[in-house]
């Protein structure tokens, strides 16, 4: 039986995976070890840790109810990281994937778990050198978490389109806005959580999978949205790491506001039909971003993801006012309305400079000098 550690509803936390690049040709470089060594020489309580390959570093905020405090914390973490990276002549960057790295060059970070993952998944593990943002939303109990996860599924394309920042992969323009999610599809336990009604049913499912020896812990599920019983949260895992931490925080606030809305509107019930259109909508968001098509599984209506986001943001107006997230919601509204995205910015950089190395240089400068 998985124990769901109940947490205060609507608290939130954000994890960001960052790229570590050299400052010569801006390729990925192994640096997480050296970076952590320098960072840990100063006293701090921040959660900064290595990830599966040595060219990734993950930062996680503490638990917040106010996204302004979260932004302040992230800014402080960034100062600490930038100082260490400057000392070591490394670059740090947002973005869902490195534009021209070659997966076979990547080195697995030497911990037992990562070695195991690498052995099991072979080249998939190294291809997993992609960089995402995870958003955690606190839930009162397991049943609430299951309900929230299903209700959020309808809005997953929003998070993909608003964060999309991986148009280039392995040196080519993928024509996708977010190519990162495609590399996650390859894992056997990726996709979505089964349509279970409550925490008890989820546990039954989990136990069955554990008995079958398919999984050992929740970590083995690479789902887009999953309950995280240890933290007492629902975790959204589809976002690319945005190029700026402000965007990352706004996305966190958006998830928080959506959750507040769903928690308040008790009459809303999860629908299995959501999952009929799920993969179609998800693909549209990855491929076309804001311009993609979103099919509403309930009414059957079609609109662009951009229109659907703007509609949803209108719907959240009151919830945002109550929660204090209006500024973040307005920021996202402007972003969605303008049609601009991080992926678009990266393509513009490439158009101007003609060099992917230079794209990463600008990407890194943007993250480090805001």
């Amino acid at each position, binding site marked *: 039986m998985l124990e769901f550690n109940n947490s205060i509803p609507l608290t939130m936390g954000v994890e960001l995976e960052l790229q570590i690049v050299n*400052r*010569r040709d801006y390729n990925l470089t192994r640096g997480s070890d050296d970076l952590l060594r320098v960072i840990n*020489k100063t006293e701090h309580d921040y959660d900064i840790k290595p990830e599966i390959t040595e060219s990734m570093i993950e930062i996680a905020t503490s638990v917040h109810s106010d996204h302004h405090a979260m932004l302040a914390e992230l800014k402080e973490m960034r100062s600490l990281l930038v100082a260490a990276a400057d*000392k070591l002549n490394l670059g740090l960057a947002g973005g869902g994937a490195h534009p021209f790295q070659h997966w076979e*060059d990547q080195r697995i970070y030497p911990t037992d778990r990562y070695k195991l993952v690498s052995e099991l998944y072979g080249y998939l593990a190294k291809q997993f050198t992609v960089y995402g943002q995870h958003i955690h939303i606190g839930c009162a109990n397991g049943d609430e978490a299951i309900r929230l996860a299903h209700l959020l599924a309808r809005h997953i394309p929003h998070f993909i389109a608003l964060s999309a920042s991986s148009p280039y992969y392995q040196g080519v323009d993928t024509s996708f806005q977010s190519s990162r999610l495609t590399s996650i599809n390859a894992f056997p336990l990726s996709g979505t959580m089964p349509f279970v009604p409550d925490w008890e049913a989820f546990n039954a499912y989990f136990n069955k999978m554990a008995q079958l020896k398919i999984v050992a812990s929740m970590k083995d599920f690479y789902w887009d949205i999953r309950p995280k019983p240890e933290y007492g949260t629902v975790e959204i895992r589809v976002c690319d790491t945005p190029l700026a931490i402000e965007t990352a925080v706004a996305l966190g606030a958006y998830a928080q506001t959506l959750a507040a809305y769903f928690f308040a509107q008790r009459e809303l019930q999860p629908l299995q039909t959501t999952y009929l259109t799920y993969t179609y909508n998800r693909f549209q968001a990855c491929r076309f971003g804001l311009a993609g098509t979103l099919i509403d599984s309930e009414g059957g209506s079609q609109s662009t993801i951009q229109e659907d986001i703007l509609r949803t943001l209108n719907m959240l107006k009151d919830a945002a006012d109550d929660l204090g997230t209006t500024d973040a919601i307005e920021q996202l509204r402007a972003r969605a309305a303008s049609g601009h995205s991080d992926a678009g910015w990266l393509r513009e950089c490439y158009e101007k400079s*003609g*060099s992917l190395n230079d794209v990463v240089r600008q990407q890194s400068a943007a993250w480090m000098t805001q």
Partner: protein
Amino acid sequence: MTAHSFLPAWPHALNVLTATGIILVVGLLGAHLLRRFLPQVPAITGYILTGMLIGPAGLNLVNVSLLDDISLVVDLSLGLVLFELGRRVDYKWLLRERGLLITGVALSTLMYFALLFLLTRLGIDALIASMVAALGMATSPAVILNVVREVRAEGQVSERMLNIVVIGNALAFIVFSMGLAAVHMEYQTDWGSYLFHPFYLLLGSVLLGGVMSRLLLWIGRWLGRDSQTQLILVLALIAATVGIGAMFNLSALIALLCFGIASRISDARHAIVEPDLSPYTSLFYVALFVFAGANLQLSYLLMLWPVALAFIALRLVIAVGLSTGLAHLNGITYRKGALLGFGLTPLSGFNILMVQHAVGDYPQFGAQLSALVVAILIILEILGPICTRAALVASGEAKL
């Protein structure tokens, strides 16, 4: 005219291209053979041993005059290495990361004075001692770059090592040029010569590098960021720098080091895409190190081995000791600090070229100087790459 006049006369010696081809093939075979028995040994060591075997000191398949003939190919190879090294130096980092700059300068300075003291105590003439001590500051850029690339090392030990190599080589060149002034004085040439020669050498070479860097940026900007086109441009300018250096009796190597550094400093608009010279350098490395091996003469070692060993031991102790002591300043562990110092062991083999070139006018002085340098080099050319490789592997930065 006979009926078969189109047939060539039987050649009495190999020409440059044939000799280069043979050197490359033999070098590859030698390294391959060594690898079979000792897989941990870097390819460079294989090239050098092959060179010693086929060179004048060994089987004499490649004789002294042939070595002279192919020296242009070797200069070009070295030019590539120095340019690449220059591109690796990030002056902004050196200015920001004082710990690294201090380490580089302190290491070189201490090395120079300690070696000078040692050599004079061992009865070596002060002027020769000073010049050999100056050369002792210069870790081989070619060996370090090659081994870093061979084991695909990435991380602080590798990056800091490369920057310290540049600092050491630059200081070595400056002190060596100053020593040159003293040599002129000692042999009582006119005062203009002893004042002017080092300045000419130093400033001229730096200027040449600066001009080439300007040219690269201008033409590069105009050509746009196509990496293939830019690569050809870079290669062309490297070749031209080597040629101009030879024409004007400048140090092409310092010019290329400056070319590399300056082309990165002044490229504010990032017009130059980092050129990937590795396919070319790997070819030239073979020629370079077989050539280096062929130039080594064992007889000097038999004569001067006690001095050579003392020199090497002291150099190692200082490098390891100081870089361990300054490890924290560099944000690395003591262990990595020690490995960094250990990795700096290879001595620049092309010091010998610098010596021959610089003091060619004073054969007697030059002979003494080069005898000592060669004696030291024989040991370090063989052991140096092995040390660097071991250091990079032990630091965890190598990807094997």
